[in-house]
């Protein structure tokens, strides 16, 4: 690509959308508000777009900011079932996503372990949501699960880019090499960011962002517990166990003991220790501490799960799932989430019951409800 083009693309911040003849905003508006004929044409344009990224960006925009039901578009209507694809980014960056397709639904094993792990992890997460909560993929309508492996060079991260899961290889200095696709709870964590995007839409900064993180940890951990058949008592309540290099520590986060997962873990377990970091774009501040203060709602879920006992994806998971999908909005804070879970417990299992009381008590214990 021409150097100048590349620079211009970076300036506009939405690289692939720039290649569109119609501005994506306009296309989205037509698909949303246009006359029926125009709508159909706009939707066909979105669906036929060569770039998966563009397609996802548009659909995300319509669903998140315009309240359009993704199912209404019928874009992914055909296979309301598991639909996985894995791409190899071959060490490229954002502009190279998704990369080269290397395995799609039903294909035989790849020779690449990361490809197979990403494929299998997407399956475990899909089955968890389908079997336990009758949810058909992240959007509830069979959203295809796309995983992109080998992102960047020795890249120490995995993230949800708004439409795809992206995995680095790990440098061997922070994350162990090849470990990021190995942890099933990390895959569940990333895909739950997708579920949140299509439901509560929790904004990714400060308390709403910490809740976004916490729901990903809760359901990421539940994916692991469900796949292992572990009760709340048997579970390790760790996120990403064994994927950091040994010198750093045993896991990324501990839901039972926030702040004790690794050397330098600064997660609080109580509102008294809430870390009020600036909500700015300084990389040191983690969008206002989204991965830090998530320790507080994480601990609340752990307390509920162990108080109720048994399989945590059942009663506690049902309460948290109803809260995430029906009771929150993009700016909900800790208190709103706490009150919503109490209301969900009463709705699902009866007002004044042991479930409602366990939820109320857990939030009191972490200092969110008084």
């Amino acid at each position: 690509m021409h150097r100048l083009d590349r620079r211009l693309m970076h300036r506009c911040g939405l690289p692939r959308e720039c290649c569109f003849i119609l501005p994506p905003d306009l296309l989205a508006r037509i698909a949303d508000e246009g006359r029926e004929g125009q709508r159909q044409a706009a939707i066909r344009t979105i669906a036929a777009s060569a770039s998966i990224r563009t397609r996802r960006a548009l659909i995300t925009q319509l669903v998140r900011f315009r309240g359009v039901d993704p199912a209404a578009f019928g874009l992914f209507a055909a296979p309301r079932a598991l639909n996985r694809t894995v791409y190899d980014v071959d060490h490229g960056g954002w502009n190279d996503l998704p990369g080269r397709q290397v395995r799609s639904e039903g294909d035989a094993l790849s020779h690449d372990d990361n490809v197979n792990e990403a494929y299998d992890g997407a399956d475990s997460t899909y089955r968890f949501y389908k079997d336990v909560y009758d949810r058909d993929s992240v959007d509830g309508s069979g959203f295809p699960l796309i995983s992109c492996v080998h992102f960047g060079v020795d890249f120490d991260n995995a993230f949800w880019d708004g439409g795809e899961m992206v995995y680095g290889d790990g440098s061997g200095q922070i994350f162990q090499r090849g470990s990021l696709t190995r942890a099933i709870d990390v895959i569940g964590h990333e895909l739950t960011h997708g579920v949140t995007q299509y439901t509560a839409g929790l904004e990714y900064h400060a308390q709403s962002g910490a809740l976004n993180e916490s729901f990903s940890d809760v359901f990421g951990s539940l994916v692991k517990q469900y796949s292992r058949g572990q009760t709340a008592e048997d579970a390790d309540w760790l996120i990403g166990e064994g994927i950091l290099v040994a010198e750093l520590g045993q896991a990324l986060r501990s839901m039972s003991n926030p702040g004790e997962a690794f050397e330098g873990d600064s997660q609080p377990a109580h509102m008294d220790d809430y870390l009020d970091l600036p909500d700015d774009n300084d990389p040191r501040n983690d969008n206002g501490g989204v991965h830090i203060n998530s320790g507080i709602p994480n601990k609340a879920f752990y307390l509920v799960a162990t108080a109720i006992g048994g399989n945590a994806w059942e009663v506690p998971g049902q309460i948290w799932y109803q809260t995430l999908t029906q009771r929150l909005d993009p700016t909900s804070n800790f208190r709103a989430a706490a009150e919503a879970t109490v209301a969900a417990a009463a709705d699902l299992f009866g007002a004044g019951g042991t479930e409602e009381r366990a939820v109320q008590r857990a939030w009191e214990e972490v200092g969110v409800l008084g």
Partner: protein
Amino acid sequence: MSLKLTVVRGGGLAGLTRQTELASEALPAGEAAELHELVEGAEWSGEAEARAAPANPDEMSYEVIVDDCGRTTTVRFTEQTLPEPIRLLIAWMDSRPERRQSIVPR
């Protein structure tokens, strides 16, 4: 000619903040020249605030500081807005054994 590159990486799945530094003095002559070339080949102007777009979940964010004989330039990006020449510069820095890396405590 003294050139020092500092990269602060934050956010990401782990929420860790990591700082990596590499000074041209620490490098053999050929590699020091390469560092200069890579820095000169990247674009350092533009509004840092505008480029640090709101992050996607677990997306990493970057602060890159270039100290060129005491003249300092600081730019910020997210994974999404990170220009390709700077991404390659960071990958090159990560491959150098002379770099110093630490996890920034809170």
